[in-house]
């Protein structure tokens, strides 16, 4: 072998070798996003430490402005401490969303993988996705809540249902493209079995848009929770959520604007942070 190149492969310097997600997370955009999301998540996690009142304790002094009587953000119309409700609300939202969106994503991906197995299954799965997409989300939310009764479960079910076709379709499209790629054919020719090919070879290559979608879906979930609370079918009272805090505050918007300010700010920051993250990921993975 005369002309071998055993050394000095043309390794590109510096960042090139890093994983694109890591690279994405070091951009300014993503850092701001991380800080925003991190701060909100932390506030939720540390709710018991940060708040001096129980979120459901009613002091008897309704709608006091911020700073009075040990209520840093004031109280709501039933005399509950707004700061505690806000912090615990974040917690509830996070719990619901952190459960629902990944479940939706996983189920969606599972269906998409199923669809990749056989054309008949593909048709079935596709029609099922169409069906879920065709149902107007909030009407679905009303129906699901009517069936299951108000509480966390219907919120989780609705978010999950809404996310399944979103992820499923995206992954299905990705698989269709990726499995015709040379590397997939190569793996097949190399003897890799179908399941392994799908999961170990193709899936990682379809992951980029899914990761971006995950961030987008989290924001959608925040809204969905809020919208359901607004329509009165959200999480069970007296448990606070960002959505029901907001809709509870809306009648007092002109009378006690501080009531709505907290949840609105948090929702905005959370969504802003997540969109910044998704954009950063999107940019980096498209390179």
């Amino acid at each position, binding site marked *: *072998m005369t002309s*071998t190149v*055993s050394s000095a492969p043309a390794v590109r*310097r*510096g960042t090139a070798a890093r994983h694109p997600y890591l690279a994405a997370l070091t951009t300014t955009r993503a850092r701001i996003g991380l800080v925003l999301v991190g701060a909100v998540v932390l506030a939720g996690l540390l709710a018991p430490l940060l708040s001096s009142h129980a979120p459901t304790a009613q002091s008897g002094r309704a709608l006091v402005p911020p700073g009075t009587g040990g209520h840093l953000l004031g109280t709501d119309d039933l005399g509950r401490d707004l700061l505690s409700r806000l912090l615990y609300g974040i917690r509830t939202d996070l719990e619901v969303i952190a459960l629902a969106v990944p479940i939706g994503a996983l189920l969606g991906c599972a269906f998409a993988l199923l669809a990749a197995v056989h054309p008949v299954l593909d048709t079935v799965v596709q029609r099922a996705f169409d069906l879920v997409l065709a149902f107007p989300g909030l009407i679905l939310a009303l129906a699901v809540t009517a069936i299951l009764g108000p509480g966390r479960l219907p919120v989780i079910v609705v978010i999950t249902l809404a996310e399944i076709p979103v992820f499923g379709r995206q992954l299905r499209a990705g698989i269709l493209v990726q499995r015709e790629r*040379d590397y997939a054919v190569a793996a097949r*020719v190399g*003897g890799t079995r179908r399941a392994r090919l799908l999961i170990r070879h193709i899936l990682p290559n379809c992951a980029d848009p899914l990761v971006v979608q995950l961030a987008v879906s989290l924001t959608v979930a925040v809204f969905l929770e809020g919208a359901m609370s607004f329509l009165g079918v959200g999480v069970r009272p007296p448990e606070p959520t960002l959505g029901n805090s907001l809709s509870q505050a809306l009648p007092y918007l002109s009378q006690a604007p501080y009531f709505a300010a907290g949840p609105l700010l948090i929702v905005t920051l959370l969504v802003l942070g997540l969109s910044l993250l998704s954009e950063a990921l999107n940019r980096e993975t498209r390179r």
Partner: protein
Amino acid sequence: MTATTPASLEPALLEVRGLGVDFTAPDGSPVHGVRGVDLTLRRGETVAVVGESGSGKSTTALALMRMLPGNGRIVSGSVRLDRTDLTTLGEDELRTVRGARIGMIFQDPMTSLNPVLTIGRQLDEVLRAHAREHDAGHRDRRARRRRAQELLELVGIPDPARRLDDHPHQFSGGQRQRILIAMALANEPDVLIADEPTTALDATVQEQILQLLAELNEKTGTALLLITHNLGVVARSCDRVLVMYGGTVVEDGATADVLGSPRHPYSAGLLAAVPRLSSPSGTRLYGIPGSPPDLSLPVVGCAFAARCPSADAECGTVPPPLVADGGAADVRRVACHHPGGSGVTEVPRRVPSEVPVGAARTDTVDGGAPLLEATGLRKEFGRRARGGRRDPLVAVDGVDLRLDAGETLGIVGESGSGKSTLARILVHAHPADAGVLKLRGSDVTRPSRAALRALRQEVQMVFQDPYASLNPRMTAGRIIAEPLLARGGFEDRAARRRRVGELLTQVGLDPSAADRRPRAFSGGQRQRIGIARALAPEPSVLVCDEPVAALDVSVQAQIINLLTDLQRELGLALVFIAHDLAVVRQVSHRIAVMRHGRFVETGRADDLCDSPREPYTRALLAAAPEPVRVPAAA
């Protein structure tokens, strides 16, 4: 070869001096794409810029038009067109130059036309863009349409009046390149820059396009700057040639001189690396060792020093200037401390003795049952034509082939001939619709799961595109280990790792490469990984689908040599598929010429090339451009 006119007599139309282009890498560091390039183009002249990928030739072309991508900028030098410095023009003035004074055509005709606009619209857009500068009324839509029609006629599109209303996808690749040429010529520019205009095209079409360019050059007097990596194309059509390497011009002179007696070791090596159609089967190719320089690193000394056989200490520290080398000052320049001293012209052209068919393996079945045998293979793809009628595309249409152990069968064909589909049928990536495929005499056309697994051990494949065929998310080691896992017997991690290391060494890579992902490797290195993967199950048949088509000439030789070496060492039977007859001849024992899904001619490699029977084979042979007419001119 037209003699070059003395420079003093005619003023330069386009004069580039000391052009430097920097790019900003994603991490913010500068990459010097082009450094100190000088180039002169006179009216009516045809000049070639030759180099491999990363040499800076395309960057130079784009910089002339100030069309560098967002992260690139001109950092030094000037580009004068009739004494106007283009590097200082404003965006609007520049627009009056683009298309009107300088036209440009690009490498890939498939993507360079706007897919959603009709050809007529696109020509109209181009004419309209400069309607104001033309006194003749291109302002009138009907006048423009007439002109568009003329242009299509000029570049040889039949029935131009009707075809103006067609969309790009309704044209073949060659036709699209003609249309692009028509667009570039629409406003009668003085200079036409053609950036790899024929690279994406088949040899026969390439021939037509080159002819067209030559004709137009003659007819319209447009100066042509031809950017290419193909020395054959240069030899065929250019007055002068610049050889670029690592962002600089390393040699510059009349085509006949440079190709006839290259003075720079790189030019010489490049020339030597080009497979010659005239070389008989079994000729070993010369490859320049190593890979092109990393432009993001500062270049100290000669960029080629690391790969140069005659480099010394000076080459590693002092950059050689581009200076006149002998003869007339303006005609021939070389940037080398030791011009002409490389010794590559005396490349050992070893002609190994023919490998007797079936003799490479001792375990060949007696009675001459071939290793792989196919009869009447057929493959259709469902396709819906206009109006929804079913119109299946027959990709492979009754192919018979046999392959003996240790033998190399070359398959040559142009794009769309069905050769890649055939390759995929042979490795069972696609099932055949009809026909019989036998391995060692047993029918494997429709294998059971178990049989298929056994088959995967026997028949492996090397893919064309070293970028697409490696999973970007896996390390080289995992990619190579994947068939080992599938095969079984390597459940032990350490054993697997050892075997991967062996395979990497076998294909000429360091075992440490196993931990890196594909994007850390160059094209040639990736192809080596691909070969290692194919070797992992210890196959007896290796199907190589255009294994070198995506590689630079100098690297191409390395890979081909690797394949032939491996074949000899392991006694592999090879199916070598390519569009380049010259390459195929040198590696193959037998050659099959494929067209429209059928084998039109099959025969011993040398016989087929020296005395083709079929007209199509002859056309293919005629279309392959040779870099130098007389190979032994040096």
